[in-house]
Structure formats: structure tokens, C-alpha cells
């Protein structure tokens, strides 16, 4: 009786071990399945790049077609009176262009990201379809500092009969430009301003942290505050952004 009980105990402990290992197997299988599916997302891009590389050598139609489309798109943009943005990886500069001329530029000296993240950003920007133009979908200001003291603006406003609020320019401390598809360019400056809304900032950050596993790429660019002011004010929702080179 004692024997059989110990035998039963041993069998049940064996079963427990088997059950545990089966659960592990199931978890492992699931993890593998997730990895395979997620990896398949990026397959289209690598296939396309391989195809492009194979064709390298003679007059490369694939590259020429893309470059041609980019030029055509830019030519269209030069007809408008509004500037457009260029992420120029040939010269490593972020530019604002108006009618084909550079009106503002800043070196892209990425601060807290290594080049792999920048590459990932560019890959994501182009997507599987090789897109080289995306409109700015949104911008979000985290913190800013008043450029001119309110007391000065009050005097000026009274003298020229203008609402001082209209004269103020926020010097951004930190803001983000978003293009959708998980593409975020974060601009940071050297000033320490006041948060625009602590609650809103927290919500935005949590939302972005939650989206991260589904492919959000944030690259950080450090810019002088006065230059950041230009970018912040000029880069409005809908501003078309081109990427050089197109592929």
C-alpha cells in the first residue's frame, strides 16, 4: 500500500514535470510563432532591397525611377508658396526649402540614438512601398519657454496696440514631429522651459511606450533653441517631407 502510494506520488510528480514541460513547449511555440509573424512584416523591404542590389551595375532603372519620382514630386512642391521639409541623408541635414531653394537647414547630429535607429527610421519612412514623401501628421510640444519677457511685451503691445499674447513666441524645449506609421522625430534644445501640460505629456509618453512593441521609432535631434523655434513654427500639419536619397 505504502509502495503503491509512493509509486502514485512518483507518477503524479512525473506527470507534473511533463505538464510543466508541455506548457513550456506551448509557450515556446507561441513565442516562435509571434517572432516568425513579426519578422515577416519586414520581409517585403529586404526582398525589394535585394532586387535593387541585383540590378546594380548598368543604368539602374530601379534607382533612376525612384529618383525621377522624387524630382517630379519636388518640382510640384516648388510651385507652392509654402516651404517643404527635406530629410537629406546625402548631406546629413534637415532642411526647409521654398521654391527649390534652401531657406533653413540644420545638421542632423543625432544625440541619443545610434545610427541603427536612424536607419530604422529611414526604412520605416520609406516603408515596403518605397515612399519618399510623407506629410507631417502631427506635432506635439512638451515644454517651452517664453522668448520675450511678458513685461516687455506688455509695453510693446500697448505702444503698437497689439495684443501682447500675439507677439509672444514660445522657444521650444522639447517637441515631436510625427509622420504616422510610428515615425517620430523628437527635437530637444538646451533651454529648460515649462511643461505645456504635465498630464497631456504623461498621456503622450504612455501612449508612445505602449505603441513601441508594434514598431514606433523615435529619433532624437538636438537643435539650438532659436533654430528649433523656426522648425517648430514652420513644420505644420500637412507639410510635405521628402527624403533624400529616395531608396
Amino acid at each position: 500500500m505504502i509502495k503503491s502510494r509512493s509509486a502514485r506520488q512518483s507518477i503524479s510528480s512525473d506527470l507534473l514535470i511533463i505538464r510543466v514541460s508541455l506548457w513550456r513547449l506551448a509557450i515556446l511555440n507561441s513565442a516562435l510563432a509571434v517572432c516568425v509573424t513579426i519578422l515577416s512584416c519586414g520581409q517585403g523591404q529586404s526582398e525589394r532591397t535585394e532586387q535593387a542590389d541585383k540590378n546594380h551595375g548598368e543604368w539602374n532603372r530601379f534607382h533612376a525611377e525612384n529618383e525621377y519620382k522624387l524630382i517630379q514630386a519636388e518640382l510640384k512642391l516648388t510651385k507652392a508658396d509654402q516651404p517643404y521639409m527635406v530629410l537629406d541623408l546625402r548631406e546629413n541635414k534637415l532642411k526647409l526649402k521654398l521654391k527649390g531653394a534652401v531657406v533653413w537647414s540644420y545638421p542632423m547630429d543625432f544625440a541619443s540614438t545610434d545610427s541603427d535607429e536612424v536607419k530604422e527610421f529611414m526604412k520605416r519612412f520609406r516603408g515596403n512601398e518605397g515612399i519618399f514623401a510623407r506629410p507631417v501628421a502631427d506635432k506635439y510640444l512638451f515644454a517651452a519657454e517664453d522668448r520675450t519677457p511678458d513685461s516687455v511685451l506688455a509695453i510693446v503691445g500697448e505702444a503698437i496696440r497689439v495684443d501682447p499674447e500675439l507677439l509672444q513666441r514660445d522657444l521650444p524645449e522639447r517637441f515631436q514631429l510625427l509622420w504616422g506609421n510610428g515615425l517620430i522625430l523628437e527635437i530637444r534644445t538646451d533651454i529648460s522651459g515649462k511643461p505645456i501640460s504635465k498630464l497631456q505629456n504623461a498621456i503622450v509618453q504612455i501612449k508612445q511606450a505602449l505603441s513601441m512593441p508594434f514598431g514606433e521609432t523615435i529619433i532624437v535631434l538636438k537643435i539650438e533653441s532659436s533654430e528649433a523655434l523656426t522648425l517648430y513654427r514652420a513644420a505644420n500639419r500637412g507639410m510635405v517631407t521628402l527624403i533624400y536619397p529616395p531608396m
Partner: protein
Amino acid sequence: MRRWILYVIIPLVVLIGAMVITVLIKGRNALPDVSAVIADSLLTNLPADVKRAEKEFEKAQNALLKLEPAVPYIVINTHSNKLCLRTEDSILVEGTCSTGSGEELIDSATGRHWIFNTPRGVFKVNSKVKEPWWRKPDWAFIEEDEDIPKTEAERLDPEMLGEYALGFGKGYFIHGTIYERLLGISVTHGCVRLGSEDLKVIYDKVKIGTPVYIF
């Protein structure tokens, strides 16, 4: 046996879940709503014939290159109130300016109204004037609650525009100011005010025909 089914079903459910997420991600990757202005250029292809394609490519490239100014050009940045003389790659001269306030003025007597914006776009320097006199327009009197003068002489002000003025069309000028302390703030009626030192440098370096880009 049932347990085995469970071990198969769990990975399957996870797999389906992962596939749904993938579809969602791919949905996010869908072509962006690129401005209608350039949407058709994304569909423009080169001709099938290589020689024709090369020619077409070169033509497009040259059209874009032509738009780059061949001489140093003026850029007026209304966002940060900066004016610079620059080339494609470098800034030659830069100064703080003042641009339009964006305010609106309505003449209650006649209903006429003005919006004091600096125009955006591309212009050319079309006049260079030393010791310019300002011919005060009607709004200058309406703004000050003064009567509009009947004679031209009453409209003229020899001080307000500083020592130099560069006209760039439609009555707009880059000129000096007696209110240098306000440089950097958008307070003007549309003209671009510049400090006297920067103005002299710009005036000396710039020729008639120099492009002026305002954004």
C-alpha cells in the same frame, strides 16, 4: 488527449492574435495620404526606352537645379524674425529683423480693413534707396486716430525708414527703424525692419534682382 488539443490550440490562438496584430501594423504601413499636389508624381514613370529615359531624367534634374539661385539670396524667416543673406550651403550675413504683426485694422468710418502680414513667397529686390522718406499711407493715420491729410507733404516722414531701403515689390521694403529695441518681435505693418548695422551690410552686398525668399 484533450490536453494535447489544448497545447495545440493555445499556440494557434496566439498565432492568430499575432497575425491580427501584423495586419494592424501593415494597415499602419499603408500609403500615407500624401498631398494631392504631389500624389500623381508618385505614379510618374520614366519611358521604357533607356535613352529616352536617361534624357527625361536629365531634363527633370536640370529643371530642379535651375530653381536653385545662382547668386547669394536673401531669406526672411518670419518665424524667428531673422534675415540672412545666404547661399545653398552657408550663411553669409545674418541679422535680427521684425516682420508683420498679423494684426487687422478696420476703419470704422469707411469699413476699409488691412491685415499687417509680411507676404510669403519669392520676390526680387527691385529698388535700392538711400535716405528713404516714408510716404505714410491712410492706415498710418487711421491707426493713430488722426485725420487723413489732404496734401502729400503732410504724409512724408524722413526719419521712420532709417538710412537705406530695399524694395521687393507691392510696396514692401526691407528698411531701417527708429525702434531698434523691438527687433526680433513681429510688430511691423508688413515691411521688414532691420538694425542699422546689418542693413548697411545687406544694402552694400545686395544687387537689384537678388532673390528674396520669405517664409
